[in-house]
């Protein structure tokens, strides 16, 4: 039987994100206008009601995050989208989603910061915020596509990861990838793998919504399906009710943090170009990875042994992958549109004795292939 055909289209990144969400089964979006993410909200405002889904523009970013979590608890795959200032506002409720283990997707189309910053220019200034924006010890998943095609596929992946790990997932992008128009091959529906949250198999009386299971991921019942349980942001035990018992608190918080870390091999995605014998390793993500690839290809054509490790997952940080790709490297170049948020982690992984150099930009300009090539050849 012939495999279903993909459909070729020209599409803007943000639109591809909206379409990817729909393909993943998203039927609830709550958002708020903020450049350069608004196209996602506008696309879903048109598309969701047409397929029986729900779009709502909430009164503020915080309300949008709250509504997203509420809809997920009632069983719908839910998403919100924003940029820097809105991402800052959402942090408290993102922490709630972490603590209460509610699957949802938060898109952050990064723009220049800090504060109001540069609404119409890209940056990569929110990488650390994606990890530690909300208070307390919590794990997070953050993935970062570098093309329109990747944005489509990784939006689907974001939903799958959210459902599989009962976690909020931050889908990072940036103003460049979000506003690019590129050719994209949209897979047929039967070619798309969808993962849904694991439901409880026990009777309601035996259900523990925060059970310490073998894989650290408790099954999740939806509100209204016969499993009446308590969801709170307070430190709680396996039953979901608040507790002051230090042993139980430790058990739950350790499980919560382990949940992502022990599955990091499943979660972390990177893309490698010429890394097997790379003497100069370039590390980049998102829009900068596009310039980095051009730079590395040009360097190779001139006989220079450069390689590129494109990070498609930012958190959990691809430490093993970086270590492996850099094994022959005499020089590591981290190119990013921030002041070293990835470089800081790379240094942590590889140690301070390695020659780690940064190519940084925070003024709204993109990092060009030439700038990275110059750093490779220097």
């Amino acid at each position, binding site marked *: 039987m012939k495999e279903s055909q993909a459909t070729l289209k020209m599409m803007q990144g943000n639109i591809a994100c909206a379409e990817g969400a729909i393909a993943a089964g998203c039927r*609830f979006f*709550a958002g708020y206008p903020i450049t350069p993410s608004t196209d996602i909200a506008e696309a879903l405002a*048109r598309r969701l*009601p*047409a397929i*029986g889904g*729900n779009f*709502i523009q*909430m*009164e*503020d970013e*915080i*309300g*949008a*995050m*709250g*509504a*997203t*979590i*509420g*809809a*997920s*608890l*009632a*069983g*719908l795959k*839910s998403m919100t989208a924003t940029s820097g200032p809105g991402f800052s506002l959402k942090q*408290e*409720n993102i922490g*709630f989603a972490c603590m209460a283990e509610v699957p949802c997707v938060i898109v952050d189309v990064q723009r220049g910061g800090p504060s109001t910053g540069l609404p119409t220019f890209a940056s990569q200034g929110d990488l650390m915020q994606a990890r530690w924006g909300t208070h307390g010890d919590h794990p997070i998943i953050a993935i970062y596509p570098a093309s329109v095609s990747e944005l489509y596929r990784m939006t689907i992946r974001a939903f799958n990861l959210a459902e599989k790990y009962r976690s909020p997932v931050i889908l990072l992008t940036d103003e460049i990838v979000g506003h690019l128009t590129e050719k994209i091959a949209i897979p047929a529906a039967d070619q798309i793998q969808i993962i849904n949250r694991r439901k409880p198999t026990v009777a309601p009386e035996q259900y523990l919504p925060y059970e310490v299971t073998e894989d650290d991921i408790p099954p999740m019942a*939806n*509100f*209204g*399906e*016969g499993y*009446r*349980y*308590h*969801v*709170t*942001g*307070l430190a709680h035990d396996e039953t979901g*009710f*608040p507790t002051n018992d230090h042993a139980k608190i430790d058990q739950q918080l350790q499980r919560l943090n382990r949940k992502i870390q022990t599955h990091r091999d499943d979660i972390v995605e990177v893309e490698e170009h010429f890394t097997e014998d790379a003497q100069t390793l370039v590390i980049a993500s998102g829009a900068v990875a596009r310039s980095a690839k051009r730079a590395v290809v040009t360097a190779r054509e001139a006989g220079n042994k450069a390689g590129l490790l494109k990070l498609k997952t930012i958190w959990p940080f691809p430490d093993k992958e970086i270590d492996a790709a850099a094994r022959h490297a005499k020089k590591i170049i981290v190119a990013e549109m921030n002041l070293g948020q990835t470089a800081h982690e790379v240094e942590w992984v590889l140690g301070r004795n390695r020659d780690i150099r940064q190519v940084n930009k925070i003024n709204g300009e993109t990092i060009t292939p030439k700038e990275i090539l110059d750093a490779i050849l220097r």
Partner: protein
Amino acid sequence: MDYLYYLRKDKMPHIWCDGCGNGIILKSILRVIDKLGWQKDDIALVSGIGCSSRTPGYVDFNTLHTTHGRAIAFATGLKIANPKLHVIVVSGDGDATAIGGNHFIHAARRNIDITVLIYNNYIYGMTGGQVSPTTPTAKKATTAPYGNPDAPFDISQLAEAAGAVYVARSTTYHVRKMDKYIEQALTKTGFSVVEILTTCPTSYGRKNKEGTGANMLLLQKENSISIEKAANLSPEELHDKFVVGVFVDREQPEYAQLYRGVKDKAQQDK
């Protein structure tokens, strides 16, 4: 009336202080649900943060204890995603009208079919007795040690102005009225609010020399006045009075109904 059927008995006794009116409100909610014959699985009780917001932990429904001020936003998502759920929000004066004010007025404007029960004790009780947007002028609180300089909100008027289709106010003393208003609110389609003036003897009462919970209930009994009678009194005569009754009960298209219209249009245009 068997309250125990609706309670998570192993969580009792609840944490509210002796003389706190919150338990009186909870009993009223349970009586009304019992009378309406609603199934426990079909009810979602959503709260923010504060003494009011500890309510969900004690009841055997789908319960959601969210972040400070945000219960209504979470409840909006729940209701849209599963319209069959009866979504009830319990919140406090600070939770709903200070940090949560924006969600409160917009949900009213949107006329989404949830009921919000606001336990108004004029104070931030859980955190030790700080001033709230409803603390009357000149009353004392830990962050208003010389007396509150601010004017307070009238939560019922705020709800009415923002577009709520049903707004009523009771005190914890007026249990029969409270039952009736909560029943009307729960059965009303659209955004309905019942503001219940409750007693906090531990913080508000102590700081303002209002005595025990029993005494504060007595003050409610003696100083309450109906909306109709209050209409004929001057602001000075109304000072320190609790105006109770139904402020508004009107019909407006409800959010889900309006969004169904959006879906119809979107599906025609396809």
